[in-house]
């Protein structure tokens, strides 16, 4: 799978970042195996490090993962013939990298005979690569000094996810407002700067899009 090096690096970094943010080895492995949440795991790290309330961690996971909801809206038509349990299972395996590859395949070859099999095989490979690399990262991290600043690598993977989303002006404007708000509101209790930033960012993006639509 050509996607494997990307998944592997991302998993490795997430594993290291989890431990460097204060989780112990069993906690980090349990989080990786149970949640399989990628960016949501990374997003939750600064929150759990400051013992943020659980509802905020849940809300953050949902919002960061709205990307997957978009992917699954698209996947719905391809999985339409399958049973409910299969659709739910396949939906859970959706990730940024596999969805990008699946979309690219259907663009190249719209009549590919077994798209679901292609998707399922790739998604399973990614799951295995992710778990293996995460666990390597978790175990290796205990021997890496904090001064290397490896938790920054987790933030950098989020940067890589953010960049392609900002291709349109409304999204870019919203992201800038969200970033500035979250920095300015950093001193608020319970990490409330985060939801505040998201709300103001979405409103900004909405307004910018409406203005551009009217112009």
């Amino acid at each position: 799978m050509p996607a494997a090096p990307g998944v592997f690096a991302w998993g490795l970094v997430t594993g290291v970042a989890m431990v460097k943010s204060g989780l112990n080895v069993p906690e980090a492995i349990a989080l990786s195996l149970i949640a399989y949440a990628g960016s949501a795991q990374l997003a939750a790290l600064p929150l759990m490090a400051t013992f943020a309330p659980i509802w905020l961690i849940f809300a953050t996971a949902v919002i960061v993962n709205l990307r997957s909801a978009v992917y699954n809206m698209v996947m719905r038509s391809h999985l339409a013939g399958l049973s409910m349990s299969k659709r739910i299972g396949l939906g859970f395996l959706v990730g940024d990298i596999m969805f990008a590859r699946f979309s690219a395949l259907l663009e190249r070859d719209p009549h590919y005979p077994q798209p679901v099999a292609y998707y399922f095989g790739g998604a399973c490979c990614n799951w295995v690569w992710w778990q293996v690399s995460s666990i390597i990262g978790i175990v290796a991290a205990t021997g890496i000094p904090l001064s290397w600043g490896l938790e920054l690598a987790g933030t950098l993977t989020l940067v890589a996810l953010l960049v392609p989303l900002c291709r349109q002006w409304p999204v870019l404007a919203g992201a800038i407002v969200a970033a500035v708000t979250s920095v300015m509101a950093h001193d608020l209790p319970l990490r409330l700067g985060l939801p505040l930033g998201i709300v103001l960012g979405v409103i900004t993006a909405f307004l910018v899009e409406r203005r551009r639509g009217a112009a």
Partner: protein
Amino acid sequence: MIEPYIWWVILAITAGTVVTRSGPHLLGSKLRIPSSFDAALRFAPACALAAIIAPDLVFSGDTLNLTLENPRLLAGAVAAVIFATSRSMIATIAGGMIVFWLMKAWFVG
């Protein structure tokens, strides 16, 4: 040993992930998505990522450092440029970390 708080964290992240990944498949295929929700779907993830990343890059400890002498900020900026031009996750992480380490060596050592 897993702390009770961490169990709740794991549960919250898992629930948030399942809702967004498997949720759309629970809806009937005829159901239309309201347009306000559609806008949130398109805008919210980028805003959330930006709001999470920004404090991580501009604060060193508790002090705000918005200059390019802040290693984390410069590393983040370089990473964004690398990903925009190369689309490679590995190059992005490696490039950003190398900038970060060089900057730290430069200013500390």
